[in-house]
């Protein structure tokens, strides 16, 4: 895909395929027969759907970075390097809308909102604090029950018991629906996460949870705040668990699909651990500090594993013409460009009315 000198991390700007990364990608896919069967069943459209969503996630963030650079907004919380975790898992869900599955994304899982169907214009509008999104300029966190998206609060970890509650509702109503959420390595230290995980296991609820270990909690590397093994958590709660390569969208998808199918069949929750790496800052304001948290060779190693670049190479190796991929990329970029432009041009006329401040405190 096109690289953006002004917005991509340097490892992505100069990215070239390291053949060893393609071997690693293939070896991961071959390692687990159950996951391999899921991947082998994907047709070309499904594979290109995953590619398109990955590109959408990356370019959505590029557009936000452009806005930050141009002074349109002051900061943005991005998923650079971690896109495959959200995309692979969300695309394993039933995304039909209000009667389908539900997600509880952290702000860094914005692509879950995109793929669940929240319009691009609203995603940009939420950052612009306009009145024409479900959050109406009152909060930057977006959610919409019509698209199965629960809006997060900034208290990471709190989504866990709420998504468990959604799953409890599904179980009580005998609806074959699934709830999915993500916590960072940081939020995995939060009491609400643990309470929710145990509650889900104790009651056998249809919820699929990711610990998205991007190796850093804001400004503290995981190695400093965590001594235990994330994969051991599932056993401790008494639910199935597995580790996925968080930079391999197919591995994430396959493991998610297996967990979602189990949940939908009434076989309870799953805790998946996705190992990945945050290539940017906690948000756009602290990228310099973030670069100082790890040695350059750590960025170099994870940079080679760009989830978009390696998957692109994998698709081309399977015979997908690069022109097909660049056409899809162009379509995604054009849609994002149009949505961003519409949101921005409508900003002045869509300012929230201070006269509405007190409206909606109570339902």
């Amino acid at each position, binding site marked *: 895909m096109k690289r953006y000198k002004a917005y991509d991390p340097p490892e992505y700007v100069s990215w070239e395929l390291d053949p060893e990364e393609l071997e690693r990608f293939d070896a991961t896919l071959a390692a687990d027969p159950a996951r391999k069967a899921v991947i082998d069943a994907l047709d070309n459209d499904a594979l290109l759907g995953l590619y398109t969503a990955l590109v959408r996630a990356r370019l959505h963030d590029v557009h936000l970075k452009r806005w930050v650079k141009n002074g349109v907004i002051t900061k943005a919380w991005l998923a650079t390097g971690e896109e495959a975790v959200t995309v692979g898992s969300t695309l394993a869900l039933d995304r039909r809308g209000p009667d389908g599955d*539900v997600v509880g994304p952290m702000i860094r899982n914005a692509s879950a909102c995109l793929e669940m169907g929240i319009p691009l214009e609203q995603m940009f509008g939420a950052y612009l604090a306009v009145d024409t999104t*479900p*959050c*109406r300029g*009152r*909060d930057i*966190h*977006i*959610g*919409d*029950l019509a698209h199965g998206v*629960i*809006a997060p*609060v900034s*208290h990471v970890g*709190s989504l*866990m*018991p*709420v*998504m*468990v*509650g*959604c*799953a*409890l*509702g*599904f*179980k*009580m*109503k005998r609806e074959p629906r699934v*709830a999915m959420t993500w916590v960072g390595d940081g939020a995995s230290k939060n*009491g*609400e996460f643990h*309470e*929710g995980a*145990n*509650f889900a296991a*104790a*009651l056998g609820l249809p919820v699929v949870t990711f610990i998205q270990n991007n190796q850093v909690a804001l400004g503290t590397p995981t190695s400093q705040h965590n001594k235990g093994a994330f994969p051991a958590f599932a056993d401790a709660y008494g639910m199935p668990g597995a580790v996925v390569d968080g930079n391999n969208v197919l591995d994430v998808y396959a493991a998610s699909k297996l967990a979602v199918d189990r949940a939908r069949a009434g076989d309870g929750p799953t805790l998946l651990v996705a190992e990945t790496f945050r290539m940017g800052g906690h948000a756009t304001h602290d990228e310099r500090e973030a670069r100082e948290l790890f040695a350059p060779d750590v960025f170099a190693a994870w940079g080679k594993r760009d989830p978009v670049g390696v998957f692109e190479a994998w698709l081309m190796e399977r015979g997908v013409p690069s022109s097909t991929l660049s056409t899809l990329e162009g379509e995604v970029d054009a849609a994002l460009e149009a949505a961003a432009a519409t949101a921005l041009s409508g900003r002045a006329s869509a300012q929230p009315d201070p006269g509405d401040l007190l409206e*909606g*405190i*109570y*339902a």
Partner: protein
Amino acid sequence: MTERTYIEAIRDALDYEMRRDDRVFLLGEDIGAYGGAFKLTAGMQDEFGTERVLDTPLSEAAIVGAAIGAAYMGMRPVAEMQFIDFITCCFQMITNFAAKSHWRWGAAVPIVIRGPAGGGVGGGPFHSQNVEAYFHHTPGLKIVMPATAADAKGLLIAAIRDPNPVLFLEHKFLYRHIKGEVPDGEHVVELGTAAVAREGTDLSVVTYGAMVHRACAVAQQLRDADGVSVEVIDLRTLKPVDYDTVYASVRKTNKVIVLHEDQLTGGIGGEIAARIGEDVFEWLDGPVVRMGAADTPVPYAHPLEHAFQPNEDRLREACRKLLAY
């Protein structure tokens, strides 16, 4: 009408709503086969099953979080805090997730969080607290505390049907100490409406919960001993407060004491007193007086708790002092 204790009236409300609406379910610690710490839900699991009378892990944040999520998906959860003191363990889920949800992104959270509050039973610092002030500050919540058996039923039914998160504070001393005639079947007391518990003309005591009974006892003593007429207002809903009823009483008596069992400093009496001072100042013939518990944790020993709580002696003297002002 049936004569019921306060706790029986609460149980009657739960039974009635569970039978009326299959979206309503209970979740909490030990509420199933064990029947709850106060046996309030004894036998309910036999009738409604293990799903609708759901025993949970000892995880208050997960209990409230699960209630929120289930409510988003169309259920009407009623979550129990075994003692309301434990609500501090889920403060964040209530104040940030539940309370802000509708204003923040339009998603209503129709849940009730109920449990035994208040002291006078030797429960000590962690089984006797009044928690309303912690939550009165938070937009989006409703807070209810009934003083009578009939109101306990009618307010709980209204709380379950309300589309907002409602904290339903039950006074544990009243559970089996008071009884009254309770309407059978449908009985709804609208949230946000105070009641005149005892009519009077010389002084108003604005209060709620168990203190309503203490205030009415003092009003009778002052009638008998001094021939004065004290009006007692039972707020019933603590958020939003029915200021119309409070102000109407102040305009009639021109003197007011705001009384609560909770600690004085930072208690909701301060907010109510301030509003009276701002809005009906011209009708006042004396200072707005607040009375609450001592600014200490709730003590365990009986003599200490007696001294801690606003008691009849202190209230009677405060009334006399204000009447003489």
